[in-house]
C-alpha cells in the first residue's frame, strides 16, 4: 500500500480528463472522480487502522520516497500518520460536498471544476508530504486556485478580496520559505536535505530555533487566520462562490494549522515551548475578538467568516498548550470546524440561491418555506456553538482540558477567556438563526421557495454525517489521532 502519490495525482488526472472531454461531461467527471477519491481515502483509512492494529508502531505509515531534485536532496516523500489521515478524510468530504453544491453552475464550468480539483490536489499533497519543500510547493499550489475562484466566480467586491487573499497568503508563504531555507542550511553539510525525517533527526540549536520558529509559525498562522493577520478571511470567504468558501474555510485554513503542528512545533520543540505563552495569548485574543466582531455582522457569510476566525483561534490555542489533549483538541477542532463551516457555507449558498440576499435583516421565517435547509442550518449553528452530540463539543472541550492541564496561571486565565466565547457564540448564532429561520415571514416573495435539490441534500448529508459521527463517537477520531499526538509530545518533552 505505497500508492500515496495517487492522492494528489487523482485530482490532476481528473482535471486533465475535464480539460479533454466535452463541457457537458465536466460535472459528472469531477463528481465521479471525487467519489472515487473519497472511497480510496476511506480504504486508505481502513488499511491504516489495520496496520496499526497489526502493531506497526512506526510514526508514519505507507512511506514512499521518490527522489526529486537530488542536488537539493528534495524528494517526493509521502507518508501518513493519524493526523494526516484525519485531515485528508476531512478534505475528501469537503471536496465532494463542494462539487455537489456547485452542481448547477452555469458559466465556465471547465475552468471552475479544474481549479477545484487543483486546490484539492494541493491540499492532499500538503497533508501527506514528508518533505518540507514538497509540502511548501503543494501549499502554494493551493493558493492561486482560490484567487481565481473568488475573482472569477465570486460576488461583491470580489477582485479586492481575491487580491487581498492572494497577497496575504503569499506573504505567509514567503515567511515559511525563509524559514525552511534556513532550516536547510542549519543541517550538517553531508546530511543537508529538506526531508522531514532527516530534519527531525537533527534538531536545531535553540538560538537558531528561536529565530526560525516565528517565521514558520506566523507564516502558517496567516493561513489559519492568526490575529492580526486574519483580515483576508472575512472578505475572501464572503465574496467567494459557495464551493470556494467551503474549500477556503474547510480545507485551506486547515493547511495552516497542520503546518504549524507538523513543521513548526514538531521540528522546533524548544522554540515552541519558549513561545508558548505568546501563542496562546494571541489565540485567545483571536477567539474573543473574532466572536465579538461576529456579533456585529449582518451578512450571513461575514458572520460565518468571523466566527471562523474565532474557531480557528481554538486550533492555535490547542497547539500553544503543547500538551496531549491540547494538541488533540487542535486536531479535533480542525476537523470539526472544517466540516461545520463547510456545511454552514453550503447552506448559506443554498439560501442565497433562493432568496438572492445574505442580509440577516432581510430574511425571516424561512423554516416555513425551506424546512430541510433550515434544519441543516440549525445543525450547523448548534455545532458551531459547541452543542454536545455534534462535532464542536468534543473539540472545544479537549482544548479546554489541555489548557487546564497546564497548571500555570496564564494558561488557566487564557482558558477561561476562551470558555467565555461559548456564550458569545451562542448569542450571535442564535441571533442569526433566530432571525433568518424563525419569526413571521416578512418578505412575501420568500413564502414559497423551491425545496432542496438532490445534490444539495447529498452535500449536506455527507457533512452532517461527519459532524454527527465525530460528535457522538469522538473516541474513533481520538484513537486515530492520539498516537500521532503522542509522537509530537515525545519530541516536546525531549526538548
Amino acid at each position: 500500500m505505497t500508492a500515496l502519490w495517487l492522492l494528489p495525482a487523482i485530482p490532476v488526472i481528473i482535471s486533465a480528463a475535464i480539460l479533454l472531454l466535452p463541457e457537458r461531461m465536466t460535472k459528472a467527471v469531477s463528481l465521479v472522480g471525487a467519489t472515487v477519491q473519497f472511497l480510496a481515502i476511506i480504504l486508505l483509512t481502513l488499511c491504516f487502522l489495520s496496520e496499526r492494529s497489526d502493531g506497526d508502531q512506526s510514526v508514519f505509515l505507507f512511506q514512499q520516497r521518490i527522489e526529486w531534485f537530488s542536488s537539493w536532496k528534495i524528494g517526493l516523500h509521502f507518508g501518513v500518520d493519524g493526523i494526516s489521515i484525519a485531515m485528508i478524510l476531512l478534505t475528501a468530504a469537503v471536496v465532494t460536498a463542494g462539487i455537489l453544491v456547485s452542481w448547477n453552475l452555469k458559466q465556465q464550468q471547465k475552468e471552475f471544476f479544474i481549479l477545484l480539483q487543483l486546490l484539492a490536489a494541493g491540499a492532499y499533497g500538503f497533508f501527506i508530504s514528508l518533505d518540507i519543500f514538497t509540502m511548501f510547493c503543494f501549499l502554494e499550489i493551493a493558493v492561486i486556485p482560490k484567487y481565481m475562484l473568488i475573482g472569477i466566480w465570486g460576488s461583491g467586491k470580489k477582485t479586492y478580496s481575491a487580491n487581498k487573499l492572494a497577497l496575504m497568503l503569499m506573504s505567509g508563504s514567503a515567511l515559511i520559505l525563509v524559514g525552511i531555507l534556513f532550516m536547510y542550511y542549519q543541517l550538517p553539510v553531508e546530511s543537508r536535505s529538506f526531508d522531514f525525517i532527516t530534519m527531525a533527526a537533527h534538531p536545531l540549536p535553540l538560538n537558531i530555533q528561536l529565530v526560525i520558529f516565528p517565521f514558520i509559525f506566523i507564516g502558517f498562522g496567516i493561513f489559519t487566520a492568526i490575529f492580526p493577520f486574519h483580515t483576508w478571511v472575512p472578505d475572501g470567504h464572503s465574496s467567494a462562490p459557495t464551493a470556494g468558501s467551503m474549500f477556503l474555510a474547510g480545507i485551506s485554513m486547515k493547511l495552516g494549522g497542520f503546518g504549524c503542528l507538523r513543521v513548526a512545533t514538531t521540528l522546533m520543540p524548544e522554540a515552541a515551548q519558549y513561545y508558548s505563552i505568546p501563542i496562546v495569548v494571541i489565540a485567545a485574543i483571536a477567539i474573543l475578538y473574532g466572536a465579538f466582531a461576529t456579533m456585529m455582522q449582518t451578512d450571513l457569510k461575514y458572520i460565518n467568516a468571523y466566527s471562523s476566525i474565532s474557531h480557528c483561534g481554538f486550533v492555535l490555542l490547542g497547539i500553544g498548550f503543547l500538551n496531549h489533549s491540547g494538541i488533540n483538541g487542535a486536531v479535533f477542532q480542525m476537523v470539526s470546524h472544517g466540516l461545520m463551516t463547510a456545511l454552514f457555507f453550503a447552506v448559506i449558498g443554498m439560501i442565497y440561491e433562493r432568496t438572492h440576499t445574505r442580509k440577516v435583516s432581510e430574511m425571516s421565517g424561512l423554516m416555513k418555506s425551506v424546512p430541510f435547509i433550515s434544519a441543516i442550518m440549525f445543525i450547523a449553528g448548534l455545532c458551531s456553538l459547541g452543542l454536545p452530540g455534534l462535532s464542536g463539543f468534543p473539540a472545544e472541550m479537549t482544548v479546554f482540558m489541555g489548557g487546564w492541564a497546564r497548571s500555570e496561571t496564564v494558561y488557566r486565565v487564557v482558558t477561561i477567556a476562551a470558555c467565555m466565547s461559548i456564550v458569545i457564540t451562542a448569542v450571535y448564532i442564535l441571533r442569526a438563526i433566530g432571525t433568518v429561520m424563525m419569526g413571521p415571514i416578512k418578505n412575501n416573495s420568500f413564502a414559497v421557495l423551491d425545496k432542496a435539490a438532490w445534490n444539495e441534500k447529498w452535500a449536506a448529508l455527507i457533512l452532517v454525517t461527519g459532524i454527527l459521527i465525530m460528535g457522538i463517537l469522538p473516541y474513533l477520531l481520538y484513537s486515530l489521532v492520539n498516537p500521532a499526538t503522542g509522537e509530537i509530545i515525545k519530541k516536546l518533552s525531549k526538548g
Partner: protein
Amino acid sequence: MPDFLLLMKSELMITLIIFILLIIKLGKGLRNEQILTLIQVLLLVNTAIAAIITEPGKLFGEMFQSNSLICLQKTFISLALYLVSLAFSGWFRKTEHLTEFFVLMLSSVLGMYFLLSAGNLLMLFLSLELSTLPVAALANFELEKKKSAEAAMKMILSSAFSTGIMLFGISLFYGATGTLEFVQLAGAVHINNLQLMALVFLISAFAFKLSVVPFHLWTADVYQGSPTPVTAFLSVISKATMAFVLAALLFKVLAVFEPAWHWLLVWLSLATMLIGNLFAIRQTNIKRFLAFSSIAQVGFILAGMTGTAVSGTASVSFFILVYIFSNLAAFVVAGILSDQFQVEDLEGFRGLRKKNPFLAWMMALAVFSLAGIPPAAGFFGKIFLLGSGAYSGHVWFILLAALNMVVSLYYYLKIIRLMFMEESAADPVIYSVSRSEKFTLVICASGIVFTGVFSWIYDYIYRISS
C-alpha cells in the same frame, strides 16, 4: 575533424546562416514567408548543433574556450532565438527588410556566442561590442516611428558610454596585472584600491547590459520604443547572455574579489528587485511593464549569484532557461495584441478570457511562472535562486527578497484580473492566433510546466556547472 570546427560549431553555424541570408538578399527571388521558413529551419538546426558534442577545449591560445556548460548556455540562447523567429512571424511577414533584420540579429547573437566563450578581456570587449551595436540598429528598425528612433539613440549613446567606462576599468586591470587572459588574470589580481575601482568599472558595464539598478535607466525606454521582436530579443536573449557572462566572470576570473562583490551583489539585488517592482506597479504600457518586471527578475538572479560558485551558476542558468520560456510567452501574447490591434496598453488584456481563452490562459501561465507560483517552473527557479542566496546566511536579505516576490505578485495579478475578472466594454473581438504563434506558445507552456517538474533538468545543470 579539426577540433576548432567542433568547439566553434555554433559560431560557424551562425556565420554560415548570415552568409546564406546575404546571398538570398542578392538574388531577391524569395517572398518573406519562404525566407522566414528557411530561417526557422536553419535556426532549429543551429539549436540542435549547439546541443550536441559538448567536450571542453580552448582555441587561439586562451582566446576562445568552450565546455559543456557554455554549450548548454549557447543552446538556451539558440533555442530562444528559434522561438523568437517563430513567435513573431506575423510581424516578420509584414516588415520588408526581413533579411537585414535577421542578419543584424544573428550577428548580435554571434557576438553573444563569442562573449560566452571569451577567454580574454580583448575578446570580451570585442564580442560585447558585436553583440550590442546591431541591437541598437534593430531598435531603430521601424524607421517611421519616432519612438523607435529615440529608443535607438538612447541605446547607442548609453551603451557606448558604458563601454567607455568598462574599457577604462579593463585598462586599469591591464595596467595593474599586465595581462588580459582570464586564467592569468585570475591569478594576478588581488585586492587593492586600484583594482577594486577597476572591478567596479568592469562589472558596471555588465550591470548596465543586465539592467541592474541603478544602471537600468535605459531599459524601459528602449524596450518601449523598439519593435516587439527586438524587445523580446533584448529582454530574453541578451539578458540571458549577460547573466551567464557575469556569473562566469565573477566566479572564475574575479573570484579573488569575492568579499567585495558579495556585498555589492546583495545590495544591488535588493535595490533592483525593489525599484523594478515599484516601477512595474504603475506601468500601463505592456512593454514598459515587462521591462520593469524583467528588471525585478534580474534582482533575483543577482541574489542567486551571492551563493557558492556551483549553486550560483546552476541556479542562475536554470532560472534563465525558465525565464526564457516565461518571458517569451508573455512577449508573444503582448506581440499578438499589439500586432493585431496596435494596443500596447495593459487595457488590451481586459476581458481577454472572453476574446480568446487560449491566449488568456497562456498569458496566465507565463505570468504565474514569472511570479513564481507552482507548479510553473518559475517557482522552482526563484526558490533555487533564493536557496543559493540563503547559503551566505543573511536572513533579512532572503526575507526582503521573498517579500519582493509578494510585491511582484501584486502587479502580475493585475494582468490576471484584467484578463479574467473584468469585462471589456467593447464587444468581444476574437483574436486570431496563427499556427506558428500557437506552436511557440505551446512550446513555451510545456517548457514552463515541465522544466520545473522534471527535476533532472536542474540536476543536469547542477552537475555540469560543478
